[in-house]
């Protein structure tokens, strides 16, 4: 309609297996030339969604449109898409080149021609030397390449990849991710890529669709999805954030902005109380979760045994003063605690900090080795962050914008 063609269109798709609803009312569209990642935990319905596009599952309601053609009731062989399976599904009794040429053989292309084409596709995945090898003699990474070449060889409207790299080791997986990205950019074949690995999704995707419990929670480019999560699930699945659960204890009109209400939230786990201004109608008693990402946390050795307010900031009148909480005028929150664990992770170090409230709240901070503070277990530290950089989620998990 507006320049970019849509190659896959799902409209209100619902897939049920008996009692279980695998996919509920899912609508999405994949644009021509893009790599679209369906990201979610196992069992969230992402593979079922992919299988619905391929035609292996027929939706109970809704429509599947491929390249402008409604294919909802068509069999897989009548659809112009190709799948790269999780276990690759190479034909064991056929050689590599016969595997790659299979799609063209089914399409009735002559033997010499389809072999030439298959050779080109083998070169694309750098497997030209393995024409007459049988799949059983190949390594996992090589099988992966053949599966990719076999799917590309039918020149599909859209290439569907079902966790294609999950059976490979980490190093090979990272190499293959870049290669798939490279091939995708070169051939400009639209791809729908299913994965449970958020790093993989961020590496590959032009756009990401985050799924949970059969629903598509959010769709957007990686930056948007990461910087502006709409839902607590998206936030928890995309990063290793610290979640603090709190409760609304008071609300009143905001003096400066009448559309908003000033809400006071107490976080018993860290013994802190904050005020936020929001348009959402939170009322006292509502649960509110704050997500404090490791990257916004300042971690420094505690200046002394007694917590002090570094710049002598004034207290907000409504915020109840606690021994180790320092919300000040610049909206920084500071907590003190003790390092409970230091985990060395090669290029980075992760610190677990026990907050001094006796409620057992723990925050984790990760620092690259080069700028990691010299701390060991038991050291007293101060953690602070800008309260404006915190994400808040309401009782139903939806984002509370402040």
């Amino acid at each position, binding site marked *: 309609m507006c320049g970019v063609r849509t190659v896959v269109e799902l409209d209100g798709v619902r897939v049920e297996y008996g009692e279980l609803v695998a996919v509920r009312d899912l609508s999405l569209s994949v644009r021509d030339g893009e790599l679209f990642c369906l990201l979610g935990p196992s069992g969230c319905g992402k593979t079922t969604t992919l299988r619905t596009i391929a*035609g292996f599952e027929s939706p109970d309601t809704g429509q599947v449109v491929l390249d402008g053609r409604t294919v909802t009731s068509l069999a*897989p062989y009548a659809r112009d898409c190709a*799948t790269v399976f999780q276990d690759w599904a190479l034909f064991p009794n056929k050689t590599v080149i016969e595997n790659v040429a299979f799609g063209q053989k089914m399409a009735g292309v002559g033997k010499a021609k389809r072999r030439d084409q298959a050779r080109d596709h083998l070169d694309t995945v750098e497997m030209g030397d393995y024409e007459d090898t049988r799949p059983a003699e190949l390594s996992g990474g090589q099988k992966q390449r053949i599966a990719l070449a076999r799917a590309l060889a039918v020149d599909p409207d859209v290439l569907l990849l079902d966790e294609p790299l999950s059976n490979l080791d980490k190093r090979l997986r990272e190499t293959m991710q870049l290669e798939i990205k490279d091939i995708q950019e070169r051939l400009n074949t639209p791809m729908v890529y299913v994965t449970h690995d958020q790093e993989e999704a961020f590496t590959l995707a032009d756009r990401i669709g985050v799924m949970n419990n059969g629903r598509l929670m959010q769709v957007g480019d990686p930056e948007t999805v990461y910087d502006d999560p709409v839902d607590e699930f998206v936030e928890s699945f995309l990063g290793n954030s610290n979640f603090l659960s709190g409760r609304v204890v008071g609300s009143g009109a905001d003096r400066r902005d009448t559309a908003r209400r000033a809400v006071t939230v107490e976080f018993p786990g860290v013994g802190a109380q904050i005020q936020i201004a929001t348009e959402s109608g939170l009322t006292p008693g509502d649960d509110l979760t704050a997500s404090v990402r490791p990257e916004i946390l300042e971690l420094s050795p505690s200046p002394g045994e007694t917590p002090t307010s570094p710049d002598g900031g004034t207290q907000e009148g409504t915020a109840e003063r606690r021994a180790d909480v320092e919300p000040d005028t610049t909206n920084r929150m500071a907590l003190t605690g003790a390092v409970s664990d230091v985990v060395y992770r090669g290029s980075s170090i992760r610190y677990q900090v026990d907050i001094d409230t006796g409620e057992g709240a723990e925050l984790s901070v990760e620092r690259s080795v080069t700028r990691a503070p010299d701390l060991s277990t038991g050291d007293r530290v101060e953690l602070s962050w800008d309260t404006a950089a915190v994400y808040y989620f309401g009782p139903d998990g939806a984002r509370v914008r402040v």
Partner: protein
Amino acid sequence: MSDVDTAGGVRRVRSVLQAASGGISRTKLLLVPLLLFDLLVFVAPMGYLLRISLAERSVGGGALQRGTWSLDGYQYLSDSSVVTTVFTWTMLFAVVATLLAVGIGTLYAYAAWRASGATRTVLLAGVVMSMFTTLVVKVFAARVMLSPEGVVNDTLLAAGVLDSSLLLVNNEIGVLIGQLYVVLPYTVLAVYSVLTGLDESLVEAANDLGATPVRAVREVVLPHAVPGMAVGGVIAFAWSAGAFAAPLLLGSTSERTVAVEVQNLLSQFNYPAAAALAVVLTTVVLVVLTLGIVLLRRRGGLRDV
């Protein structure tokens, strides 16, 4: 304590065994009981049969003259036109029965493999349960079913499909149906067992790449099923070439198989000829099976076997 003793004992026995076997590895030693068993149940009886086939026929009472050597048994076979006819018919019958058994058995096994849950259980149970009864009862049941006043004819007549009853017994159709009834379970199970090793995602991959269900079967399922079909075919052929119960109970005198003729010769106390016929049949079956396997292997179908 006792553990240590046992371990010590085992070590001692092992060293004794190793010393006794000299250069022979322990793995080969494990084959000895199997070889002895083979010798006892196959090689010795076949050798004895071969010996009888080369003995002279007894003229006054008794089946054969012990300790004599003669080719009379084989001479009798080549002279008798009855034996030649019976032999040809048996081979033809075995080939047709084998082809039908492998064809139907593969279809049945594929259906059972594709089916799920209760349907699969029913299909497989049907096959296995038919193996619970003895051959004679099975073939007799077939006779009851197929005879002119049997269930099949009654049903077809009542339904108006037929005007007069079909002759399904005392002819080659009856023998064939009876024999299939006997060998089909084995071909079905042989093919089904290899199909269970076939990854269903391969069929999906074929469909995904544009193969219709029929083409997917031809390209993916059949090549995978070939070893099972070969095993099923071997069983069906060997069993049909030696068919006895089905031709006896469902055939007439013109559907006489080699096994029936052997029995016939034995009843005439012509032991050397009976043994010679048995030896020839066994040899022909072995040669045909060897040829079949060699051909399959050359074609590449048995690569995985």
